[in-house]
């Protein structure tokens, strides 16, 4: 299975450029086999594929979480002029934030959740922190809903609100890239919609990398799509190209092999 690049160059710079990424488990099993991928700035870059294809692992390479699972990484990831695999992992993680599959707000107040990352990296006065928290909550559209009591425990929020809180928490440290690992898979359709619209709004300020197994979602929000299978990228390019085959194929079938043959 070979990776393919987009046939035309796109506007927008490449924010992250991955070359030859190999990830293997301690026992030797290969999870990612030689991935080449470009992530475009100011766009929603989506990675789709069946479970076990390595999508989440690929995401975790970008924010250096992969090594915490005990996995070995080889290759080069170009980001802001350096190889982020060799750079300071704390700097990388502040630049590249992440949102996880199930919302995982910390057992603290809404305010403290958003402030958590900020307090880690900066000494802030109360007033400054208040401003940052408000800004982050506004970014995700939560501020109006929770402003009456930010001291409330984050656990009193609904699932969709909690996930937006987690996004706000990640945004508060002002990353330039946001990784989202199936952010809506545990949410109800309404919340899904809210977050998809949020992602579309955010892409003007950040680069987003989205992992999803929901092809319809990919259809709705993506600018670029990479399709993964068994640890490799089998198709990659502008969303229109990659997904058009599926759209023409009509309803129901999500089998990528059909699309591949048809597209």
């Amino acid at each position: 299975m070979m990776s393919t690049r987009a046939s035309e160059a796109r506007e927008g710079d490449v924010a992250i450029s991955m070359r030859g990424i190999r990830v293997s488990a301690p026992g030797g099993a290969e999870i990612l086999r030689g991935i080449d991928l470009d992530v475009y700035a100011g766009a929603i870059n989506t990675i789709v594929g069946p479970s076990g294809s390595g999508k989440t692992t690929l995401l975790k390479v970008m924010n250096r979480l992969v090594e915490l699972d005990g996995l070995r990484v080889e290759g080069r990831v170009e980001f802001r002029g350096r190889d982020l695999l060799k750079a300071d992992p704390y700097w990388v993680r502040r630049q590249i934030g992440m949102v996880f599959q199930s919302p995982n707000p910390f057992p603290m107040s809404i305010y403290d959740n958003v402030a958590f990352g900020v307090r880690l990296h900066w000494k802030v006065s109360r007033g400054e922190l208040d401003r940052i928290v408000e800004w982050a909550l506004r970014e995700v559209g939560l501020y109006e809903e929770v402003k009456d009591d930010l001291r409330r425990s984050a656990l009193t929020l609904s699932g969709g609100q909690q996930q937006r809180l987690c996004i706000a928490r990640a945004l508060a440290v002002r990353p330039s890239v946001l990784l989202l690992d199936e952010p809506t898979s545990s949410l109800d359709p309404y919340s899904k919609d809210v977050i998809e619209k949020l992602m579309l709004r955010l892409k003007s300020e950040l680069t987003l990398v989205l992992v999803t197994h929901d092809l319809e979602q990919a259809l709705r929000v993506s600018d670029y799509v990479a399709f993964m299978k068994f640890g490799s990228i089998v198709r990659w390019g502008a969303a229109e190209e990659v997904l058009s085959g599926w759209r023409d194929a009509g309803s129901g079938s999500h089998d990528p092999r059909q699309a591949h043959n048809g597209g």
Partner: protein
Amino acid sequence: MTNQEPVPGPFGFRASPGASFGALLFLFGTAATSALALAIVVPVTLITTIALAMHTPRHMSRAVGASMQLFAAIPSVVYGLWGIVFLEPLLLKYVFPWTEATLGFIPWFRGPATSGSGLVASSLVLALMVLPITSTIVLDSFRSLQSRFQAPILSLGATRTEAGIAILGFARRQVVGAVFLGLGRALGETMAVLMTCGGAINMMPVDIYSPINTMAAALAALLDSAFIDASGMALSALAELGLFLMIISLASSAAGRALAGRIVLRGEAR
């Protein structure tokens, strides 16, 4: 049971030798040894939990957890034996001269130390015995939170230690519970303390090198001589002491159980 009838007012200050039953010394000794033991155990538990859970691979911390169970299964008397034969000479020969020299300006450390037994030896032994209890609960609570929160905390750019401190903060309730449970154990520990405390009976300690006694140890040491007292008052006094000890141990363990959600039986892993 006639022997259990409360005798009015046996708790008092140190009295002259003779027919009096002041228990202040024992109360103080219990409080002091427990406090000192916990003062050692709590920071040690916290920092080793962070180090083991965040800085070492899983299998290593599991091995340490398993050895904690062995720790807890060693009989109290054996700890006492080790205390007498190894710890006390060590303290007397090396540690106490050093504390006399460096901290001697504080009256309580001036000494001179004439024996290795006393507050320091019994507190250290007690700390060794309480540690498995607190560390089992704290490490357990940490682990149950770690899988959910480690990734998001680290993805925000925290160092391992910062993440460890944050997760311990989430487990605040269980940590306090663990301390109470450890306290409950410390209050009631008998033999090892008996063998290392110096067996003071009616003299309050003048410095950290003096012999002391705790309620549990005093019960064990004095019960047989209490039978000699024909009036039965000595026995009553000890019985009251036992009742008091039981109440505070139960209270502490109950509080710990409420906070931490469980108790730890010796030899138990999780």
